[in-house]
């Protein structure tokens, strides 16, 4: 696993300072000589640095395998794609699962509460590490999109193109409510032990699985669920008049919950959902989102999905409106799909091809102008 140790002190929004901490990352493609073809991709709540290919830990496809790779939307024959595990995460970056050298136990809930801003500031160190003066693009969906917005507002001159996808500038009450449901599921698991469980023995797996099941429903659309599962029964011809998984949708959710606990840490889930809830870029700029982008020349391409009710088109459009209010360069499209919020992770050809063309055209335009 690749990682850098960040020596520089990072002042967190909560007031605490951290330094000498690990940030795990992965890269795809090659950085060219001019170092102008780098794209920093931010992952969502349960993602990690393994965006493409086979994730060496889970042995499954990377979370954005549809979009990142040779000839794909983020064409690694052309671009150098960097993706890091966010701080607070559990795939090698500094997080609640990191072993505290003093106690030899996971830091657990002694880990400071972090924000999207903290995550972005930590990842900015990768530019120094790779000696990249300016990224070609920053991109991400969901929480990854929030990081895109935060990145451009923090570093207005460090990316030529920004792709915030299926996200929001301000986490809504409904978003917070669903995250709280997940956290309560974890915290009410007796194995959670105020967050000081030892990862190797008993984890709050049941709580974490329920959190995942609840969240998973929010990633899909009603129509998508109905079409995929309907009222189909799971390996039985009749109802069993009990509480086993009679329906396919129940079985599907239970499966999603059970595989999730194998790869994700419950405390990381608490910390990262908290970071999302605290995200309110509009408030950071005194109630005027436009101010977040007033110094930037970055070209924006905002994308939403028709069936995404978790981060609906209206919230994505608020970002577009804020950008137009200051004459920023912005494109926007709502992609038609019944796959819900998860659309950004799935094989949605319209979405994938539009991004590919947009990036390629802008990259060649940029090269032509420079010559």
């Amino acid at each position, binding site marked *: 696993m690749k990682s850098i140790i960040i020596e520089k002190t990072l002042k967190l929004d909560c007031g605490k300072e951290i330094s000498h901490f690990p940030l795990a990352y992965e890269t795809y493609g090659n950085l060219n000589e001019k170092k102008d073809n780098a794209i920093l991709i931010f992952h969502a709540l349960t993602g990690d640095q393994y965006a493409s290919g086979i994730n060496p830990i889970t042995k499954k496809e990377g979370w954005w395998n549809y979009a990142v790779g040779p000839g794909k939307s983020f064409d690694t024959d052309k671009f150098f794609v960097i993706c890091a595990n966010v701080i607070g995460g559990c795939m090698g970056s500094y997080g609640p699962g990191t072993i505290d050298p003093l106690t030899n136990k996971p830091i657990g809930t002694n880990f400071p509460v972090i924000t999207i801003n903290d995550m972005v500031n930590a990842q900015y160190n990768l530019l120094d590490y790779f000696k990249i003066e300016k990224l070609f693009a920053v991109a991400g969906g969901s929480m990854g999109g929030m990081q895109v917005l935060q990145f451009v507002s923090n570093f207005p001159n460090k990316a030529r193109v920004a792709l915030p996808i299926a996200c929001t500038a301000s986490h809504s009450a409904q978003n917070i409510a669903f995250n709280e449901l997940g956290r309560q599921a974890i915290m009410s698991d007796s194995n959670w032990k105020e967050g000081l469980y030892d990862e190797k023995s008993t984890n709050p797996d049941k709580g974490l699985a329920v959190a995942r099941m609840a969240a998973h429903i929010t990633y899909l659309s009603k129509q998508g669920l109905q079409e995929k599962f309907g009222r189909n029964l799971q390996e039985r011809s009749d109802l069993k008049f009990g509480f086993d998984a009679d329906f396919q949708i129940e079985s599907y959710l239970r499966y999603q919950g059970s595989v999730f606990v194998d790869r994700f840490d419950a405390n990381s889930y608490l910390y990262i959902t908290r970071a999302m809830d605290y995200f309110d870029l509009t408030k950071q700029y005194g109630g005027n989102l436009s101010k977040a982008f007033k110094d930037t020349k970055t*070209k924006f*391409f905002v994308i939403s999905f028709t069936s995404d009710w978790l981060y609906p088109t209206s919230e994505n459009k608020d970002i*577009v*409106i804020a950008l*137009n*209010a200051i*004459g920023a*360069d*912005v*494109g*926007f*499209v*709502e*992609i*038609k799909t019944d796959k819900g919020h998860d659309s950004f992770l799935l094989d949605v050809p*319209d979405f994938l*091809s*539009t991004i590919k*063309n*947009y990036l390629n*055209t*802008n990259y060649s*335009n940029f090269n032509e102008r420079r010559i």
Partner: protein
Amino acid sequence: MKEEFKVISKFIEEKSRVLDVGCGDGILMEYLLKNKVVDVRGLEISKEKVKKCLSKGLAVIEGDAENDLKQFPDLSFDYVILSQTLQAFMSPENVIENLLRVGKKVIVTIPNFGHWKVRLDLLLKGEMPVTKNLPYQWYNTPNLHMCTIQDFYNFCNNKRVYIYKSISLNGKKTSKITSSNLKFKNLISELGIFLLEK
């Protein structure tokens, strides 16, 4: 390249900021970018066309003039273009007002319902006209508010909108419309192209 677009691009001074409302596939936007070194934005209602524009790297947002012009600040563009879509809006009056609020100058083109072929259709056949520029039947037309060049002149006069330039387009032939030839141009023009100022 459509004749109409050639006329529009002649109206536009170099290095200006342009909003193309209903930009379609972005043909005009691309032409302006190549020839006038302008900063061009587009607004388009069709998802397919927006995707085409974005694929070409153009700064286009999905939306429609009746709801989405609101987000643009006053006088934030040197020119706002509305090509052959005014008649399709619920309230052309509000759209024109908003265009004039957002743009320092506004370019509007209208398919002319006063063209002699249109008049003849109604006069001789007694049927709603179906023409090259207006190829729809009355029951499936998106065009809710058809007008003639004369109507548009009257509208601008009533609203105290200054018509800076007006051009008649008939086939590939362009000519100036003036107050003295207005009646005639209203009879022979397929399209009217107007440069407006508040």
